[in-house]
């Protein structure tokens, strides 16, 4: 009799435990890491982001002893909006994915944001740059992590103009990201008394920038703003050196430069570049510890800001899922905005009503070869921009979610 009672009690306990779990769709929290696995952004995101997501899951389970069943899958969107939306659609519709993370390439990010909204799932973007994701294209199912074009423009752009670089010529990657970056930087330049003397749209992606660089040279602008990223940026910088552009007195402004880019350029070419990022492996003890763990599993390559963003966003997502006791996209998004964020990579921050994650930004200058003590020791800190100044203020936001 006692045995029966015990079994019944155990069964009841399981049932209750099960009920709490029952709101997690099919008992699994499934995270999909969608990014460029083989193309020009693969070093900045790619398999490294997948690794970061898996590390976040491991660390979360270890730290909290959570009993959630969590799965992580990855896919390559090849930087094409149609490929990306097909994968997103299929993931949400048939593969039971609950949250899509990363998604570099702004045109894909915008498409996935739409689909997440339609299906009531969640899209936590660390890879796209366009500030429209928390601006006019914002929605209740999309959260924008790591960085955006407004932050870049106000970090790098403002610093350069204040330093005397007041005439600009833009080389812009011809898609959503490039346009957004050009737009946001142009606004900063003109606000701070500078002038944009010309711009040229470069096909995305491009291998040979020679004719565009010549046009920039002919414009005699003091600053050639590179509104592009990844391979496009490194190619433009290398070729600018080939064609003696910097020798002629013009300076290059890499508006979006990641650590892997500096690594592939080499300090000889990249020294003196000013750039803004929200994460650097060598910032403090916590970032150093995590980054070394990451590099050990990533063939010695240190993490980029985006990969760190994936780790941080997945951690916060899992916390929110546990707190909200559901993996319903819209509800978890609300929870993510409610809970403050705290992780070893970005420190303390929060997610605003418009879906924008807030944390401090850092203006870095690339070291001279003589100043560097080894591989990946590339940045020196020039300034810290506090969280509440680093991103577009809510008052200027075009996001309909923000109550004015």
């Amino acid at each position: 009799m006692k045995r029966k009672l015990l079994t019944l009690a155990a069964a009841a306990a399981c049932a209750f435990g099960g009920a709490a779990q029952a709101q997690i769709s099919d008992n699994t929290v499934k995270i999909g890491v969608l990014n460029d696995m083989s193309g020009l952004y693969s070093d900045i995101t790619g398999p490294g982001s997948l690794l970061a997501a898996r590390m976040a899951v491991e660390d979360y389970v270890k730290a909290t002893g959570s009993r959630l069943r969590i799965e992580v899958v990855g896919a390559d969107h090849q930087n094409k909006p149609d490929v990306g939306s097909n994968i997103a659609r299929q993931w949400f519709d048939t593969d039971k994915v609950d949250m899509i993370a990363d998604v570099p390439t702004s045109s894909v990010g915008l498409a996935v944001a739409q689909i997440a909204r339609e299906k009531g799932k969640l899209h936590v973007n660390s890879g796209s740059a366009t500030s429209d994701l928390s601006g006019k294209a914002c929605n209740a199912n999309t959260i924008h992590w790591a960085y955006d074009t407004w932050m870049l423009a106000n970090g790098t752009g403002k610093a350069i103009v204040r330093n005397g670089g007041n005439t600009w010529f833009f080389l812009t990657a011809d898609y959503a990201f490039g346009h957004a970056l050009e737009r946001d930087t142009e606004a900063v330049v003109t606000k701070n008394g500078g002038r944009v003397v010309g711009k040229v749209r470069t096909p995305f992606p491009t291998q040979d920038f020679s004719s565009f660089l010549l046009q920039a040279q002919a414009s005699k602008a003091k600053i050639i703003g590179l509104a592009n990223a990844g391979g496009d940026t490194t190619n433009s910088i290398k070729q600018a050196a080939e064609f003696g552009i910097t020798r002629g007195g013009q300076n290059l402004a890499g508006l979006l430069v990641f650590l892997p880019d500096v690594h592939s350029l080499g300090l000889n070419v990249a020294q003196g570049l000013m750039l803004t990022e929200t994460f650097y492996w060598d910032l403090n003890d916590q970032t150093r510890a995590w980054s070394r763990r990451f590099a050990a599993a990533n063939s010695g390559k240190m993490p980029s800001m985006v990969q760190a963003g994936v780790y941080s966003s997945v951690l916060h997502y899992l916390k929110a899922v546990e707190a909200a006791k559901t993996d319903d996209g819209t509800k978890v998004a609300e929870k993510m905005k409610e809970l403050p964020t705290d992780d070893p990579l970005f420190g303390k921050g929060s997610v605003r009503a418009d879906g924008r994650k807030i944390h401090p930004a850092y203006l870095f200058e690339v070291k001279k070869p003589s100043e560097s003590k080894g591989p990946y020791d590339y940045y020196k800190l020039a300034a810290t921009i506090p969280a509440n100044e680093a991103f577009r203020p809510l008052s200027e936001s075009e996001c309909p979610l923000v109550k004015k």
Partner: protein
Amino acid sequence: MVLAFSIAPIWVYPIFLMKVMCFALFACAFNLLLGFGGLLSFGHAMFLGSAGYASAHAAKVWGLNPEFAVLFGTLCSLVLAYVVGSLAIRRQGIYFAMITLALAQMIFFFSLQAPFTGGEDGIQSVPRGKLFGVIDLADNMNMYMFVFTIFILGFLFIWRVIHSPFGQILKAIREHQDRATSLGYDTDKFKLLAFVISGAIAGTAGATKSLVFQLASLTDVHWSMSGEVVLMTLVGGMGTLFGPVAGAAVIVSMQNYLAQLGAWVTIVQGVIFVVCVLAFRRGIIGEIANWIKKPL
């Protein structure tokens, strides 16, 4: 075939099936020109893509109902086909193919630059709208019936064209153009008409596809898309009626299920091309037709 497509959505993801049907229609239209007319167009993607952009724009910016968006897309590609056809028909063989390629590239670059196409971003968030103002196509099953109907209508139309006096003359021209001329037929007019029909139906496929995926992008006007439709027709069987449908099903399925393997899709497609050209020229349906000794 009708039966297969009507009950398949119970097991198979309907969006996948709709993709197959759109490409099948595209391939059927292409086959009309190649298999029955003997004209290889290397730029057919321009019809798929531009109709896709047209209908996406119509649905999103002008708020047209889906049936009108598709019609508008078809109309645009019909006009485009007439213009391109009149220019291209004057030459034959490889030169014809090259002209269609050149004109398709021009359409590609136009799509890249024109502001309304959104360049690399494409036209996103295209609303599916309400069919006849009443049936909400956001529901996948409703959309499926809509696409299915369009596919069947298009297919029947092509079937009718092939099994008509016009179709016979077209085949005659394919076999021996000079003889057809000596019989008194104005071969250029027939070829142009075939081109226009082919282009228009390809446009219908494209217009429908952009509503299914709610996205019109550069991939649909890129020359590799023109190459894919050739592959579908070749694999399925040139000059057969059901061939392109089978070919489209095979190629789209392969792309879908091998997608995780990334570049393998391209490799497998290449291998299929090579194998088909060397050993398997009749294609799937062609081989079956040869075996059962009945035209398919």
